[in-house]
């Protein structure tokens, strides 16, 4: 077995026993990067010297691939956008500081949809990433580089971010475990903002246990992010001991099963997952989340609105691309942004600006926030009857590169992950099987209430054993 094939738990055990060092693992990951990256394109850049220097300074640490919108001092942070080409972070994000303190080092920058806007990584302004299970297909997105690196055994584990499904959908496409923490569980300081009321950093890993170990390292209060409460962070990995489906109330919501356009193989695999849970002792509970059908519409108002405000910082003044054609302050803004942003980012900025503009605010943004409350209440009511919801993660397995051309069709891929993002609760994607014909991985999603990561991970772990 090569060291790059290890998960976090196995790596930590080997490091503790002195079987190998962090430098050995990092060298193995770098060799694998050279072997596979030309084909898969999971990484945008890999500063080998810096990774090896960090590995030598931290011989018992585990290297982790980092999505290219999380700041690591001295490394590029492009958000896969031409507007940030050449940018070098002057500081570490809180998640990076936390991770280093817990025995991890950052190693390599992985690809994504530009500014995390997309579901296939095809919106990257800097490179193509392919699904390691079928190179003609997308890895999902926006954390597609993270998922391809984990699924293709090009890293031990990776950091992703999730705004409307960007950890869970690519995890499903690339056969990894992904966890979107509850809003506020993990600090966003130093993570380039897309939609501030939704963004969360989370682990993408080879097992639920690995995801639990990494989440513990990331999570916690940060005085640099006022949305992180002081709730203690449980030892998620330790609480996996004895995880079982016995007596777990699994909620099945018809809104997630009777859906037009759902791939029959995804339907089959999800139905089988439900049966396996029941056979393992779970109690199935029918629940209803009646506002689910409005979640996509709410999200595509709120997320672009917040993005249009967040991305106003790219003005060609202090960092990022500045147009050579800028003659005055207006053209400095308009031309620098026109040259730097890709088409999907432009579309969302325009959409967001439109829904926030004078005369439209109440009808769109204001109303969407109220419907968001109703979506949140649906989850609150469901969790009175069940411990977790089990749903499909995405309506299809990985699609072909170039297959989805229309933006709205692409958006619909996040149908099952968006409602829980809006509600601010936690959710995971866990591998559930492969399609019969195309042999593509398919994950299922578990959703638990806010700050119930311990329960979510125990249920995910129990499913991993029977799935």
């Amino acid at each position, binding site marked *: 077995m090569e060291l790059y094939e290890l998960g976090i738990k196995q790596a930590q055990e080997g490091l503790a026993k002195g079987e190998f060092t962090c430098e050995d693992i990092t060298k193995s990951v770098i060799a694998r990067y050279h072997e596979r990256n030309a084909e898969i394109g999971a990484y945008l850049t890999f500063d080998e010297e810096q990774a090896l220097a960090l590995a030598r300074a931290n011989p018992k640490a585990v290297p982790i691939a980092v999505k290219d919108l999380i700041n690591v001092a001295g490394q590029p942070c492009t958000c896969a956008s031409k507007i940030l080409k050449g940018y070098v972070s002057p500081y570490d994000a809180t998640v990076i500081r936390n991770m280093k303190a817990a025995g991890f080092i950052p190693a390599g920058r992985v690809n994504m949809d530009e500014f995390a806007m997309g579901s296939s990584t095809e919106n990257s302004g800097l490179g193509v990433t392919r699904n390691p299970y079928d190179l003609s297909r997308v890895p999902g997105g926006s954390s597609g580089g993270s998922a391809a690196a984990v699924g293709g055994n090009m890293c031990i584990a990776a950091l992703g971010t999730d705004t409307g499904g960007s950890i869970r959908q690519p995890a499903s496409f690339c056969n990894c475990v992904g966890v979107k923490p509850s809003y506020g569980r993990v600090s966003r300081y130093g993570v380039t903002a897309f939609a501030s009321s939704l963004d969360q950093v989370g682990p993408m890993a080879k097992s639920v246990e690995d995801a639990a170990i990494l989440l513990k390292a990331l999570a916690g209060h940060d005085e640099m992010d006022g949305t992180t409460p002081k709730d203690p962070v449980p030892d998620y990995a330790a609480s996996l001991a004895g995880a079982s489906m016995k007596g777990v109330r699994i909620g099945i919501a018809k809104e997630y099963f009777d859906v037009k356009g759902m791939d029959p193989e995804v339907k089959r695999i999800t139905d089988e997952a439900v049966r396996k849970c029941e056979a393992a002792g779970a109690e199935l509970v029918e629940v209803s989340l009646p506002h689910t059908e409005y979640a996509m*519409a709410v999200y595509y108002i709120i997320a672009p609105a917040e993005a249009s405000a967040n991305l106003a910082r790219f003005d060609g003044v202090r960092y990022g691309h500045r147009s050579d054609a800028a003659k005055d302050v207006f053209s400095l803004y308009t031309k620098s942004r026109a040259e730097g942003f890709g088409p999907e980012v432009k579309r969302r900025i325009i959409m967001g600006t439109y829904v926030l503009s004078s005369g439209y605010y109440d009808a769109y943004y204001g109303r969407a926030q109220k419907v968001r409350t109703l979506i949140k209440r649906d989850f609150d009511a469901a969790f009175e009857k069940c411990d977790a919801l089990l749903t499909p993660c995405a309506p299809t397995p990985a699609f072909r590169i170039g297959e989805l051309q229309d933006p709205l069709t692409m958006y619909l891929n996040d149908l099952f992950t968006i409602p829980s993002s809006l509600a601010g609760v936690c959710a995971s994607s866990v591998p559930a099987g492969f399609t019969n014909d195309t042999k593509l991985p398919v994950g299922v999603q578990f959703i638990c209430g806010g700050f119930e990561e311990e329960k979510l991970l125990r249920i995910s772990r129990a499913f991993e054993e029977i799935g």
Partner: protein
Amino acid sequence: MKIDVAYVAELARLELTDEEKSVFQPQLENIVKYVEKISEVDVEGVEPMMHGRPLVNAFREDVVRPSLDREAALSNAPARVGDEFLLPKIVEGAES
């Protein structure tokens, strides 16, 4: 719903080519038509949800402490002069 894409792009400080305008126009109208679905929902008396989690003010002690070093803050500047960011002339009629 007809969107004045050129006007909204100007509000967003984004220069669009004619081709971009003609591609975005139907796409954006399609998206807006889709999101208008929320007008069906009865939201009478419903409080807006502003954030992923109910928020209270998060205060910290007001103490002076080191912030980002000046050189580090300027390290990604597209253009600089001394300790400042260099910009094109922004005041009409002033000497540059």
